């Protein structure tokens, strides 16, 4: 028999590994979507811990911030269809998360995403329920939170975009913060030039 502590440790370790794989999958997704971004994992960004932070165009462009959600999305199969609706559950967890992502300081990012770990999502089609859609929008409509599903079940972890993000307002502060962040932090992924001569 395994002790309760050991089982707890194993579960924690599995969760940590799942989170790590999810971060890597999101990084790969952003590398494909953006133009030679600089990508940071577990970034301390503007006082917030951001799971994956990508600064577009070699660190001189827009800031993309992704938070991975630890809870599973509440899904309901759409009638007479193979697709699923992402809905609010009784705890209103997703509503609270979207509110948090919107209300975080304006410096949070030009593009903001919530990423859910959802097994088997690669081959499925999802839509956000119409009751949740307004919650993804900035109050003034400039900016919409993107929703990603990360499938860790298949051999290769993959990201399935469920709702495309729209750009939030920029500011002098966010541009200066991005420049400072790039100058002071070690990047997790970037395209590096050769040290001396070009071969």
């Amino acid at each position, binding site marked *: 028999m395994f002790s309760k502590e050991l089982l707890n440790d194993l579960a924690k370790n599995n969760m940590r590994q799942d989170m790590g794989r999810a971060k890597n999958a999101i990084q790969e997704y952003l590398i494909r979507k953006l133009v*030679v971004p600089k990508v940071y994992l577990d970034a301390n960004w503007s006082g917030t811990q951001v799971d994956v932070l990508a600064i577009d165009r*070699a660190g*001189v462009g827009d800031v993309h911030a992704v938070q991975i959600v630890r809870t599973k999305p509440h899904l309901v199969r759409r009638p007479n269809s193979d697709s699923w609706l992402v809905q609010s559950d009784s705890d209103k967890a997703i509503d609270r998360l979207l509110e948090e992502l919107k209300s975080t300081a304006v410096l949070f990012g030009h593009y903001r995403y919530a990423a859910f770990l959802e097994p088997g999502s690669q081959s499925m089609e999802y839509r956000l329920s119409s009751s949740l859609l307004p919650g993804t929008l900035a109050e003034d409509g400039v900016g919409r939170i993107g929703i990603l599903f990360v499938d860790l079940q298949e051999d290769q972890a993959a990201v399935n975009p469920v709702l495309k993000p729209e750009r939030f307002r920029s500011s002098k502060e966010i541009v200066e913060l991005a420049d400072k962040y790039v100058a002071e932090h070690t990047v997790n992924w*970037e395209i*590096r*030039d050769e040290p001396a001569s*070009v071969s």
Partner: protein
Amino acid sequence: MAAVQVQHYLSRARDFLEGMNFLKDDLAFSSALLGIHCAISYCDALRIGLGSTKVSSDDHGSAAENLRRCLDDRKFENLRGVEHLRKLLSKKSRIAYAPDAVRKYDFEQIVNHTGRFVVWAEETGKKLRIEGW
């Protein structure tokens, strides 16, 4: 007016780059050519932004030299991107027309040079405060 042209070339360059990345695992020739054209479009954006009035002639070989002159005029010292561009342009005909086989290594080099050139071009456009960048 130059800013509009810069944005036009930039948009094309980023489009080619996305295409290169999308195809690089499956369609090597297509991906490589998109990479080279991505670099040419970035070069055109830089040259227009730096005051050139004519770009994208059939003689792509002169594009790198013209870009270097533009950067010299602005006393811009980091010319590493020009070397990446030269390497890419030197491979264009071979990828598009040559009858002999192309090694996997050559394709990988094109993708690498393209990525490095794009990083340099994006940083350079920002540093030189090119209008439209």
